[in-house]
């Protein structure tokens, strides 16, 4: 017998579920000010996430996909990105967007049904939310190709979920990025559920990280509830990408603590015990315990942080609720760089009709 290939998949963790270090903390996470700053971002993101849910439940926001439980993945990955890198996300990466400088008002506008929310004032190179699963993985390859062609040291970071790893475009993207050794980080949040379909029904593969092997690129699994591990693994991948050594697939193992979206009821298909057990592994408490343990964080600072997060989120909410709806012309403007003559008549009709409220009354 001749063996023509062997592979193994590393799994990385620095903090256990109690927030105790299980191995030497890497250089990338030794600066306590940085860790505290990232912790603050995680808490702000969760505060904002919970406010979005509350707004939806009270009829003030559209359908929304909560990122509850994946804060360490989003913040850890975003923490290794440079301003001019490019983030491509699916719909559950509110925390990563926040870390990239997308404003709460912009995200509220988007989820509240206004396209202006995707015209980010900062993060100009970041792609808008991608709802059609895994199609954005191919955009990341194209963006990274452009970066490499121009000889830039930028990277494209593409975030998706475990369900996305079943799609053809996911594999097409990994495969293409491998062929051209492109600067891409494919980050898969394995939160165990794609709406109601559990991880074991997505794939018979032991890990999702090993899907990298078929594409000839490095793949690694990381504890997605361990901020330090996510940051370190993403940093290693980004450094390789910037050095021209090509893409990496990172499977960040976590758990979807929320329903799929506000239109879903996860209690229909998963056990309360499983959810309760997942809460024991969640990322924010774990990092807080670590910070308390190394004495760079205190209960009083925690209280002050929670209050300031609530205040900041409330200010954004107030601005959102006071924001006027877009004018009907928005449907036509920016569809093309220059408005085609053929659309002028329809645009005129829409303007004459004016804004129409939910009950169908022109106003």
């Amino acid at each position: 017998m001749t063996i023509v290939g062997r592979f193994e998949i590393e799994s990385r963790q620095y903090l256990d579920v109690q927030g105790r270090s299980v191995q030497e903390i890497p250089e990338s996470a030794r600066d306590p000010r940085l860790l505290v700053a990232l912790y603050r971002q995680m808490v702000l993101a969760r505060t904002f996430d919970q406010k979005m849910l509350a707004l939806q439940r009270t009829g003030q926001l559209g359908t929304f996909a909560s990122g509850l439980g994946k804060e360490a993945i989003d913040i850890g990955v975003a923490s290794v990105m440079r301003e001019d890198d490019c983030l491509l996300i699916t719909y559950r990466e509110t925390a990563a967007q926040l870390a990239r400088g997308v404003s709460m008002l912009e995200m509220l506008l988007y989820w509240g049904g206004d396209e202006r929310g995707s015209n980010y004032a900062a993060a100009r190179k970041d792609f808008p939310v991608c709802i059609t699963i895994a199609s954005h993985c191919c955009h990341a390859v194209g963006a990274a190709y452009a970066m490499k062609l121009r000889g830039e040291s930028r990277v494209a970071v593409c975030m998706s979920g475990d369900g996305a790893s079943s799609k053809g475009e996911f594999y097409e993207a990994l495969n293409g990025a491998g062929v051209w050794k492109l600067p891409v980080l494919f980050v898969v949040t394995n939160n165990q559920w794609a709406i109601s379909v559990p991880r074991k029904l997505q794939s018979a593969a032991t890990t999702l990280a090993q899907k990298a092997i078929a594409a000839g690129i490095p793949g690694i699994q990381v504890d997605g509830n361990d901020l330090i591990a996510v940051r370190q693994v993403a940093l290693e991948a980004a450094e390789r990408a910037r050095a021209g050594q090509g893409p990496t697939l990172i499977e960040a193992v976590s758990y979807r603590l929320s329903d799929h979206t506000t239109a879903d009821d996860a209690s229909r298909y998963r056990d309360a015990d499983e959810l309760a057990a997942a809460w024991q592994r969640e990322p924010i408490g774990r990092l807080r315990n670590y910070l308390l343990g190394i004495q760079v964080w205190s209960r009083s600072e925690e209280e002050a942080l929670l209050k300031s997060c609530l205040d900041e989120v409330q200010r954004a909410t107030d601005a959102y609720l006071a924001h006027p709806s877009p004018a009907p012309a928005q449907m036509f403007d920016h569809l093309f760089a220059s408005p085609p003559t053929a659309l002028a008549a329809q645009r005129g009709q829409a303007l004459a009709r004016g804004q129409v409220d939910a009950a169908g009354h022109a106003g």
Partner: protein
Amino acid sequence: MPQVTLVEAVNLALARAMADDGTVVVLGEDVGTDGGVFRATLGLRERFGPERVIDTPLAEQLITGMAIGMAVEGLRPVAEIQFSGFAYICIDQILNHAARMRHRTQGRMGCSMVLRTPCGAGIHPPEHHSESPEAMFAHIPGIRVVYPSSPRRAYGLLLASIQDPDPVVFLEPTRLYRLFKEDLADDGKPFALDTCFTLREGADITLVSWGAMVHETLQAASRLEQQGVFAEVIDVATLRPLDMDTILASVAKTGRCVVVTEAPRSGSFASEIAANLAEHGLLTLFAPVSRVTSYDVVVPLSRLENAYMPDTERILTAVRKCLAFA
């Protein structure tokens, strides 16, 4: 002035665009070393290098999605899908992303890309190589759909499509790739998009077509002239956005119109033109608008191809009926 075929005109336009603009890249299956299965990209790799003339893995969604990512990042990609039957899988990327990128970011990101694919029946190929998908693409808001019918228009319209700041689906009539030649200056001058081309003037009837069927339509017009009937022939060229003004003005003059396409009949782009004529040109019409199309069947394999596609005789029959209507 050299005489070139339509596929050579495509090649010249690609070379000219790549020479004039360093952000133009070509990608697709076999477009590099092989020069494309129809040789549309012949010699480009040698001239512009493998970084800009990219042989991709066999993955159409990757090709289309990559082009979108490249375009958003400031390149001007021209992606080739080898045959139109393989382009259906790209509709997701075109419809959900390319067409929406500028609008959904409110102008922050554009998507200046071209998706080229050979189209239409009549070259006796295997299954899935003879499709006429133009109406499917034309139904997508936010993109241009361009379908040239001669070497010169292929050259000028492809240059314009590459320079256009928005996504263009560029359909190439496979049957015309090497059917005839035209003088071509290779002067780098783009033709106007969003406008029809009146190929032949006449006062008795308007014949409207696009793609390979323009060829049969012109033949029909020549035959009619021998019989003393003067047909105006319009090549739609850009299906979306549609220049209905030119068609309406012609029909206002002739009062009669036959629309010719080799796509299946129901929901075809001929139906869209006929509906527009009914809405906006009814009082100028002396006869019902007539559609000459293929049938509502799947494109047959090669032995029945000729029985499927419209030909000059079918166009003439429709014209005679239209002229006889009182």
